[in-house]
């Protein structure tokens, strides 16, 4: 038995898992309907796929949510996992699920997939016959991913960096890399049986003034770590920055570089998709304005040429959105996409050049780390501040980089910390900002700049 298989057996013998039948699952994946694979829909490329967010604790409510979505013409169904499962606390999830089932109150903020089990969940997934995207935020997602694939979920979001730096204070980063390596291997192995299982990175990160260069570098690195293990379908992603020009530049650069770096490790045969997240920052409390902001996101996603868009709702500022609000936003986004045709092709050569140079310089610094494997190089680079995510709560993150918006709302780096932003690019970034202000005024600007709607 291989080491991986030994590890799988141990993970799946968890007391909260109802006897896992490897042979039966393999047979299921082999014969699974192509409609369940997002990679199949990407390959057909008829239009930009629309995917909302959403997850409820009970099977009944999750089923009802999916029904709503299907009626609203959704392309990809979401399955958001509850926060106890994210922390591998299946016992609490189980208790809360029982409480949710017995009362009318939801005691979990998502679907506890491991507790429901794959036999039950598969009934729902195959009933709707739409691709499902697993959204969770789990550093150790090994059991969760095994259960997801066995359920017919062939789109797995996350990664060792993007599901850790924005969501955790002190989960060990080296462990996260190793646990995600397992996930990649399992996805790669199952991909050989039928169509590829798609892996998607989480580009929004902290969703707070993250400069494009940092987002792109992290997307590229998670992509490389995944392709290295044999994954053949990967989605890089980013969220609306607040500047239309910066989004478009970012879209061009991330596509170009993803291809280049995939080829550099002889993985040019893998399919790389681009996913765009509607505005992920603080939302206006005025619901009509929120709707305008969402609509704007859809227009930008079209200009960027995204393969998939992930939606937000007009209720975002006031708490967890209802299924009705979620369905409405799917229908509205589909409508906007339907009337957006023949968009102009915009190129900003100077911005593209600057961003490309920044990304290349950081990537080079990561590759030049003396460690023996890519994940160790990346680990060291986060540890020494070569990669620095503004507003990450994690203790390993340096938090030395400072960014603000310029007059055109572009996110600019005004303090680079240990991030190897080339001098020429750094001068360019700073030249766009008013740096004569004192720190207190700059802090006030940052508070203002976190939003884009003021």
């Amino acid at each position, binding site marked *: 038995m291989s080491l991986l298989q030994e590890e799988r057996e141990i993970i799946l013998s968890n007391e909260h898992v109802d006897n896992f039948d490897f042979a039966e699952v393999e047979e299921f994946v082999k014969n699974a309907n192509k409609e369940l694979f997002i990679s199949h829909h990407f390959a057909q490329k008829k239009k930009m796929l629309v995917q909302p967010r959403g997850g409820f604790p009970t099977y009944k409510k999750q089923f009802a949510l999916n029904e709503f979505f299907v009626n609203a013409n959704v392309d990809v169904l979401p399955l958001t996992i509850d926060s106890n499962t994210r922390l591998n606390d299946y016992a609490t999830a189980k208790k809360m699920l029982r409480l949710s089932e017995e009362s009318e109150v939801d005691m979990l903020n998502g679907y506890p997939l491991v507790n429901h089990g794959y036999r039950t969940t598969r009934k729902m997934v195959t009933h709707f016959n739409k691709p499902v995207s697993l959204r969770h935020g789990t550093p150790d997602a090994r059991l969760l991913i095994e259960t997801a694939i066995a359920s017919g979920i062939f789109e797995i979001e996350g990664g060792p960096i993007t599901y850790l730096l924005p969501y955790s*204070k002190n989960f060990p980063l080296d462990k996260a890399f190793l646990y995600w390596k397992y996930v990649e291997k399992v996805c790669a192995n199952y991909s050989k049986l039928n169509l590829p299982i798609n892996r998607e990175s989480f580009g929004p990160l*902290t969703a*707070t003034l993250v400069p494009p260069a940092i987002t792109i570098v992290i997307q590229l690195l998670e992509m490389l770590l995944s392709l290295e293990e044999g994954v053949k379908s990967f989605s890089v992603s980013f969220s609306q920055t607040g500047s239309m020009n910066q989004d478009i530049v970012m879209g061009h650069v991330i596509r170009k570089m993803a291809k280049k770096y995939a080829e550099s490790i002889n993985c040019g045969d893998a399919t790389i998709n681009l996913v765009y997240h509607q505005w992920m920052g603080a939302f206006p409390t005025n619901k009509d304005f929120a709707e305008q902001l969402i609509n704007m996101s859809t227009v930008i996603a079209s200009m960027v040429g995204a393969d998939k868009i992930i939606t937000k709702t007009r209720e975002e500022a006031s708490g967890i959105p209802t299924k009705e609000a979620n369905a409405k936003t799917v229908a509205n986004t589909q409508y906007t996409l339907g009337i957006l045709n023949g968009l102009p092709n915009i190129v900003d050569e100077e911005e593209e050049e600057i961003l490309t140079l920044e990304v290349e310089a950081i990537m080079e610094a990561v590759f030049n780390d003396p460690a023996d494997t890519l994940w160790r190089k990346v680990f060291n680079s986060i540890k020494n501040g070569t990669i620095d995510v503004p*507003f*990450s*709560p994690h203790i390993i993150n340096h938090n030395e980089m400072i960014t603000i918006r310029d007059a055109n709302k572009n996110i600019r780096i005004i303090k680079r910390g240990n991030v190897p932003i080339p001098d020429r690019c750094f001068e360019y970034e700073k030249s766009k900002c008013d740096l004569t202000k*004192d*720190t207190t005024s*700059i*802090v006030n600007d940052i508070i203002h700049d976190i939003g884009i709607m003021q």
Partner: protein
Amino acid sequence: MKVVTGVVGNDIHVVANRLIELSLDARGYEVFNLGVNTYLEEFFDAAVETGADILLISSLNGEAEGWAREVKLLKSKYKTLDDLVMVIGGNLVVGTADADVIVPKYKNYGFDLVFHQVDLNTGLDTLEEFIKERQAS
């Protein structure tokens, strides 16, 4: 002056915490930022370790009260913290409540200054005045 700061409890909201650090830094304080997800014991340990003058606790998710109830008891276990200026700020209740109700409640828990939904600079200005008055007396 030395300040220990951080976000109390199982609260991962880091943006304000980062801005507090920048602002304190700009005002010339020596800042020890414990970041998010910090337990009361960690705050007091850090205050002892650094010899801090001020402890500035923040909270956003509304759960601070559950933690603040134990402040007096816990602080009394540390012998060197009698002069520590205790400050709490952020969003200090689940749901909504008036500052008239919240401020006395938290003062009773052992805080010298309580900022419920108060703007960052106003809070820090008030802190500076408080310290000035204390030094004068």
